């Protein structure tokens, strides 16, 4: 392991009281947009999987993380300082836009919370992408880095207060605004949301071959 470059923290950018973007050295690390890694403080006993938030073209790696109480790895990363070392492994996963030909297609991205990370990566990496992003959050402040998305393509479904584009959950929104069946649909978030959205989109006529899922735990 000694010949591997050390990944040092460049910055920790706080978005809310618990959510932050950690930026680390990329070195020669290569990954496809949409993939994830395992990440943790150097020599820490545990790590966690995080989707890459930055674009493969960025000279750094970024991760969007929520530090909930009891989430030891995320909380430790939240406290990281520039120059601290982190351990990184990967990349993993097949939740990506594989075939350049399909970039001409229309996409539907559905995420809850920090499940938006791979879509942020897609949007940065493929600026020409024809997408619609449905983002479920609890509070208005959870619309992380809102300016990075084309405003007309981004819908914030805010469940606990007014001020978003839609008041309610992503499933409520999709019931009122059914998906077009030709969209290639990517769903990212917790297991129950993924299962519910999948069923909803199938009921709305999206073929199962057009549904890709990434589940958080």
């Amino acid at each position, binding site marked *: *392991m000694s010949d591997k470059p050390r990944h040092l923290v460049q910055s920790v950018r706080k978005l809310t009281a618990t959510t932050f973007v950690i930026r680390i050295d990329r070195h020669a690390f290569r990954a496809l947009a949409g993939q994830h890694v*395992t990440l*943790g403080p150097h*020599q*820490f*006993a*545990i*790590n966690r*999987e995080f989707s890459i938030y930055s674009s493969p073209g960025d000279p750094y790696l970024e991760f969007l993380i929520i530090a*909930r109480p*009891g*989430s*030891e*790895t995320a909380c430790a990363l939240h406290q990281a300082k520039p120059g601290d070392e982190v*351990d990184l*492994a*990967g990349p*993993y*996963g*097949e939740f990506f836009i594989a075939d350049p030909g399909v970039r001409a297609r229309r996409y539907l991205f559905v995420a809850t919370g920090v499940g938006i990370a791979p879509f942020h990566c897609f949007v940065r990496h493929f600026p020409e992408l024809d997408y619609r992003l449905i983002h479920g959050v609890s509070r208005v402040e959870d619309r992380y880095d809102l300016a990075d998305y084309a405003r007309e393509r981004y819908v914030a479904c805010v469940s606990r207060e007014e001020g978003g584009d839609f008041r309610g959950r992503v499933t409520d929104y999709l019931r009122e605004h059914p998906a077009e069946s030709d969209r290639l649909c990517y769903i990212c978030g917790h*297991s*129950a949301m*993924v*299962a*519910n959205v*999948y*069923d909803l989109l*199938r009921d709305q006529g999206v*073929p*199962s*071959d057009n*549904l890709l*899922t*990434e*589940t958080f*735990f």
Partner: protein
Amino acid sequence: MKVAISYPPILNDRGQVAMVSQNRNVQYFKIPTYLLPVVHAQAATWLRDIGCEVRWDDGNAQQKSFDTWYAGLLSWRPDVVVFESTTPVMKFYWALVKRIKGDLPKTLVVMTGYHSMRKPGETMRACAADIILQSNHVDFVLKKLIPYIAEHEDWRETCEIEGLFIRVDESKVRQTGTFKRVEDLNLSPDVDRDLVEWKRYAYENGNYLRTPGTYATSVIRDCTFGKCTFCRYNGPDLTFSIRSVEKSLDECQRLIEDYGVREIFDDSGVWYRGEQARAFARGIIDRGLHKRGCYFGFNTRFAYLDEETIALLAKANFRFVLVGLEAADAETLTRLNKGYLPHQARQNLEIFTRYGLHPHLTIMVGYYWQTAEQLGATVSTVRELMFKGLARTLQVTICTPLDFTPYHKECVANGRLLTEDYNDFDMSKLIVKTPIPHEAYYQAIRDIYGVATDPRFIARQIRFLASGRGRDWEFLFRYGWRALRRVRNHVYNLTSQGRD
């Protein structure tokens, strides 16, 4: 509809029985080990609940000979028989399906399992199976499929349930699209213990310190991590699904109160972590189940559980923690996509044992790149961990490419496979080209299992008695002789053939 969910007794020429239902791998065992196939048991329960006549037909656990098992199946005359496939028994199944189709031409054969789901065309060509499930959610698919078949004579042409390969006629097979990867496991029922005759699985299983033991209905289907290249639970077609903590707690309570279970093991690829793990432990404590004489156990992986969670699990009377230590060198762990580093294995074991848990290491040897130095590191690390009491039990397997996992595909692509005969994929011998002679890996297996009779290991177990924990006394005096018997069996299985 009459549906048989069948596990035929499959004996090799050495009189060993194939454990098809073992998650991730299959092995032939002489000393019986009965493993409840949980997802298929849920499928049986669900089908029974919706009105099917179900035959739980595990010929191994029911200790039947093949002839007795087969005669029983024929006389029952099922409308549908369901099998679970995995690489080393595929040739057996293809021949069996042919025989069934000769004796029961109207019976539909459904193939499930990780081999046929990844190569459905191969099984369709090799035998007369009617349907192949590409979904790992056997319970969810069968619950939709069986009623559909019952209600539609033209089901071969019209069925649109996702994730199926259907034989339309002698020349045509059709596919019904990608299956749903994430299911809400709360919808699938708990295993009906009476239907599957749970006591048949309650004693002969090395994971239990106390008996009767049982497998819980898994809280996670497949694996939350799902990246290890050698594992079935890996691939673009697979992710994990999850069951609620409350539902799982309810089942544990029933198992303890209604069935008198004394050890519950959850064979999820990787069990809960984080908040769910803590909520589960708190639930066990809040319900007083930690004081009912029942131990709990699960599979996990290194770098997954933090100390606060482990402390809470120990308080809730968790004991057995099964964790993979696939190698002791970083290069191999990286190539296997394990997502942890050697130092994390040691750190995690120190925390597990600090709180009195009994870590069980699952070790593998025989990767096609594994050098003498890497192999030696595995052996010396494992022996040291065992002598220091940082792990309590272990098992070693030969890493065998199976079921078209990434490791299997890698072996094929790199020309490392020594055989294409599926019968050789039974984990009893190395079947890949390696940089050092195969005998070195067999010797490593003997050296690792040799720990069990090493005075340093025995002395460490005796020192554990000073902890005052009842489980340490039970471990030494009740479990010890059983473990020794199994060690001899494992060494025989893994080192006595394939070296001619």
